[in-house]
């Protein structure tokens, strides 16, 4: 139980997927102009991340490992993710149209979001079991949500700030991300085993 808690805190804050591990930065910069869209993207990431990590974990354990096809990991995982996003999109449209209205436009963007594939692969490298896998992917997703939602909040304010001409747009955004990363750095050493 303690180990699960540690995994959760570690992947949410200490090794935050965006600010410490540098995954999913393109959408982090791209879809963070408004808090509303940032939240939408964040929820979509949490949702797909848990499903994709779980399915790729099962595939690795029950298909790739027994057949000694570990070297096909990359190609299989990316295909699973691409297919999964499509399936989620179609079923969500039929079953939960309100949810689809909220998250629908972010789903196609997620295929090329490297967090999903990254977490699926990291999860295998870390040798987690089934429950740890679920906790790991869920809390990493939440970590992504925290990072992008906070960032969008800052950027909304930033629109009104007097920024030197060359730094307008993405440049000041990335520097802001750097300062956030510095703040998150304070979490290192938070968990002692």
């Amino acid at each position, binding site marked *: 139980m303690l180990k699960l808690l540690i995994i959760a805190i*570690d992947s949410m804050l200490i090794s935050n997927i965006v600010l410490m591990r540098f995954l999913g930065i393109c959408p982090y910069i791209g879809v963070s102009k408004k808090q509303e869209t940032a939240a939408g993207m964040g929820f979509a990431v949490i949702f797909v991340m848990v499903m994709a990590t779980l399915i790729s974990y099962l595939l690795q354990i029950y298909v790739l490992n027994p057949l000694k096809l570990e*070297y*096909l990991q990359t*190609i299989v995982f990316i295909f699973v993710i691409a297919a999964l996003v499509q399936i989620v999109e179609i079923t969500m449209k039929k079953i939960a149209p309100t949810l689809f209205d909220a998250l629908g436009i972010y789903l196609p963007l997620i295929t090329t979001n490297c967090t999903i594939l990254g977490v699926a692969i990291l999860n295998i490298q870390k040798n987690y079991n089934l429950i740890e896998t679920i906790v790991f992917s869920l809390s990493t997703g939440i970590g992504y949500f925290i990072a992008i939602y906070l960032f969008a909040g800052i950027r909304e304010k930033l629109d009104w700030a007097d920024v030197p001409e060359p730094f307008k747009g993405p440049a000041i955004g990335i520097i802001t991300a750097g300062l956030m990363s510095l703040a998150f750095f304070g979490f*290192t*050493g938070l968990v*002692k*085993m």
Partner: protein
Amino acid sequence: MKENIVQVIKLFLVAVVSAFLLSYVHSITKEPIEKAKNAEITEAIKSVIPNISDQMIIKDTFLVSDVESIPLKAYIIQNNDSTVYAYSVLSYTKKGYGGTITMMIGVDKEFKITGIYPLEFSETPGLGTKMTKNKFKDQFLSKSLSNFKFKVDKDGGDIQAITSATITSRAVGECIERGLKVLEYNFKIGETDSSKTVEVKDE
């Protein structure tokens, strides 16, 4: 409909070509990859135990002790007349500033340290990572459980901690102590009991 089938067949074709290509590359790189996997361990052992010659045999085994339930991987280095030349053990600690640290620790026949080699760690660059420098590592040379307290100076031990990386230094101490204890428990003369060794297999 017909169009769809053609599309699927084309996709299938691309996938088949890619699978063949990959299995070909895999068959070529298989051997070097195996070698690379072992090379790191061998290199670590060589760097913690001085004067290893190529005739020596390295046997690996898993060890537990009275206080350790998680087995550690240990290596027995034998001369070619199968007398023991030295031991090394792959020890770990979970108390590093950035989580787990694993180290290869080498000792001679008297269980005095001949070298340590950090393998995996995620300490703060520039501070905790100073543990890989000789300035820090050399203080452990020819120390053993009987003549050295593996605690940092702040806690009343003998380890000179790295400036502003006390947690890392403390963790390294714990890591080394664990490795030494397990080795002595299993191999020290007079206490040697083959039943304590979990599994011995030839490399």
